[in-house]
């Protein structure tokens, strides 16, 4: 290819590219969303919202920290109206960074329980995810299990599979432990837990479940929607693996099962503040809450909406009542603690 032809060609390529980014605005206006939830887990809801209200939703997905960084660096010029994350801690961090604003609506106050939202309305939880203990049906009796703390007992030596401490779910779990038991006790617990690992931490939540099913270890921790996804998978191998694993709800007598929420907050410099609140209202509405439950096996924040059939089959549980904002606050301490405990 000769270069003169490239230079003729380049402007048209760029033009084509830029034409792709200017999304057509619907008559009802638009709202811009930075979402840490994956496109698959939010887009269908947004499409429904646009259909109902005529408001177009422009979406960028990404990792929480990157989106937060983007919001911060864009400052007052940010196009984003709403920040959606899959972890309450990041919403608290965003609030501290001053990129969110408080909003109120009757619907939100009514539908979202107090511990799943910021008291002043800087952010609202949208769905709840629980991280129970999962065990091999054929090798473990549910009577042998009791609490998260109990997993540090030497009887589980070589029997626990665990995801890496890079996982925000584990960080959040340890942050919860610190909130309840203090750092010293939690560190001792983490060391005991690490001593029981069947192998160095690796892989995602599904990988831990598969390892339990295959017999590499007996017990693990995983978010329920991963197991739910495997139960309803199109892959027979995943289905069979999921069938070999059962859920145990720990800490039923004490602090309750570790939970976190995905949630959203309106940005401080939102140009479409009202639309953003409308979208928040929509995301906590019955239809949207049901969609979370059915499609991704998360627990609805709205107590009026029942969980999916898959989740129901695993029984009721007592959830940790700690305000999820605390988890974000303690997250750095949790990471350092896991470093010290040798949790890779």
């Amino acid at each position, binding site marked *: 290819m000769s270069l003169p032809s490239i230079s003729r060609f380049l402007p048209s390529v760029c033009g084509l590219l830029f034409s*792709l980014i200017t999304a057509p605005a619907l008559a009802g206006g638009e709202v811009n969303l930075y979402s840490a939830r994956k496109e698959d887990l939010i887009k269908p809801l947004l499409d429904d919202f646009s259909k109902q209200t005529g408001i177009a939703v422009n979406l960028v997905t990404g990792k929480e920290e990157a989106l937060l960084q983007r919001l911060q660096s864009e400052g007052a*010029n940010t196009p984003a109206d709403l920040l959606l994350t899959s972890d309450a801690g990041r919403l608290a*961090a965003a609030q501290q960074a001053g990129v969110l604003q408080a909003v109120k609506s009757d619907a939100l106050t009514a539908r979202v329980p107090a511990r799943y939202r910021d008291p002043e309305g800087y952010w609202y939880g949208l769905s709840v995810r629980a991280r129970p203990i999962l065990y091999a049906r054929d090798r473990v009796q549910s009577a042998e299990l009791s609490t998260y703390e109990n997993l540090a007992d030497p009887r589980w030596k070589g029997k626990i599979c665990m995801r890496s401490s890079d996982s925000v779910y584990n960080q959040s779990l340890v942050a919860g432990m610190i909130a309840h038991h203090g750092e010293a006790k939690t560190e001792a617990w983490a060391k005991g837990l690490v001593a029981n690992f069947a192998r160095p931490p690796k892989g995602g939540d599904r990988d831990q479940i*598969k390892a339990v099913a295959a017999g590499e270890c007996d017990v693990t921790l995983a978010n329920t929607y991963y197991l739910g996804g495997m139960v309803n998978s199109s892959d027979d191998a995943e289905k069979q*693996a999921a069938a070999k694993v059962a859920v145990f709800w720990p800490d039923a007598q004490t602090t309750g099962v570790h939970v976190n929420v995905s949630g959203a907050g309106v940005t401080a410099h939102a140009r479409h503040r009202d639309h953003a609140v409308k979208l928040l209202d929509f995301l906590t509405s019955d239809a949207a809450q049901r969609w979370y439950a059915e499609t991704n096996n998360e627990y609805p924040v709205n107590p009026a909406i029942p969980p999916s059939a898959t989740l129901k089959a695993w029984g009721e549980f007592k959830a940790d009542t700690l305000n999820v904002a605390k988890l974000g606050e303690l997250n750095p301490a949790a990471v350092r603690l896991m470093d010290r405990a040798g949790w890779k």
Partner: protein
Amino acid sequence: MRGVWARTDRWSLLVVGVALLLALPVLTVFVTALQPAGAVWRHLADTVLTDYVGNSVLLMLGVGAGALLIGVPAAWLTSLHEFPGRRWLEWALLLPMAIPAYIIAYTYTGLLDFAGPVQTLLRAGFHWTRQDYGFPEIRSLPGAVVMLALVLYPYVYLLARAAFLDQSVAVLEVSRTLGAGPWRRFYAVSLPMARPALIAGVSLVQMEALADYGTVQYFGVGTFTTGIFRVWYGMNDSTAAAQLAALLLLFVFALLVFERWSRRRARFHHAGNRQYRPARLSFAGRWGWLATVACLVPLLFGFLIPAGQLTVWAWRTAPHVVDGRFLALLANSLLLALGAALLILLLALLLGYGQRLRPRPLVRWAVRSAGLGYAAPGTVVAIGVMLPFAALDRSVDAWARQWFGVSTGLLLSGTLAALLFAYCARFLPVALHSVEAGLSRIRPSMDDAARALGSTPRGVLWRVHVPMLRGSLLTAVLLVFVDVLKELPATLILRPFNFNTLAVRAYELASDERLADSAPFALAIVLAGIGPVILLSRAIGRARPGYDAVP
């Protein structure tokens, strides 16, 4: 200093300016790193820092060695010998380049994990349980080394092959008259003469390995890159993260200096004797098939198995996950990759030629620093683009408000321009390597001849160099194209609203642990990359006129 600037001219200014602009993301990281950090360093030094450094060094050395072990013999066999299947192996050996590293990691984990089909079959076949057998753990440092080496060796193969084909036939023949057999010709003549190319290839591979995040993160291997994110995301300390990133970049800088140093010692100009074709040595019978098998092994493990696994998954899941948006994704990916590749080519040509015109230290160092972005993890480059662009947007906005009372908002942030800039900052070295290599083969007397015939420096570039460089330029475009096609982190962070690519889609599904669902998109990346890879291989053949001509 006055002396330096007194002799500066438009070319030097232009080259230094462009180079520094491209170095902006990396410079941003260093500037951020200059702020005082909290107690995190004490903590890191006490706990995980030795792991990060140790694992990063081992990964770098391991992947470099692995890429050499695969790439060099393959290049030696296919460029100087004849054996069954040589013609198609020659290009097929480049195919693993089309597979993103994190995807090969996912597929092999799916296959080789304790719960995967291979081990399950072993257990079922021999009635073993977990305690009865030892199976190498794929998700480990050695596993990461193997995965990265399998997809990165083509860089070494590519450069080694060009070097072997370019070697003076006379030198090889004279070594025969001095009693050197085939084996000795390989290690005492061919290999040392190809050393500059091999070092260049290995340093590319090592930079890629250092920048890798997806594979090491999935395998639970703590390196600099995973450390950066852990400190940033987990401990909310972006300054310490920037300092870790700066440390990584210093690492890379040392690598680059070493590469330059070792290349300087051996500036080989050989008067190529093209009169006789390098007779390919024929392997007869068993030896020929042995050579075929030796070349098939990296192809099998680096491409056929992972691509096969992806195909099996995609076959099952495509009906559920592929919808009307698929074509838009494909178009986005291809156009973005093409646009970026052409833009980067122009910049590489500018910098490479500017360096040739004005070979002075200032220019050289500026161009070197523009190449640092290659080894930085994509996310780090992206943040390095985001911060200065947003600052620029803010000051333009403030200025416009003050003087005209209007807000200009965000001009660059959140546009494709920012994304393209990030690609330039990250992938320039790939193109620059190949442009520089091509330029170094054009004797300076060519420039002088053209100048004496009345060409301006720019005229020399367009009328002499570009036509002669055709092969190198095509190589540069195609390499960058494939790289951008696979690129994930910067795309994820900098892309505008409602803009997705195949890589983003594949990643979103894979990171949601829906490997099978992500397969159709991963496979589309691989397939889109195959075409350029094949073109690339043929371009190299064509770039050597008369090579196959009978004397």
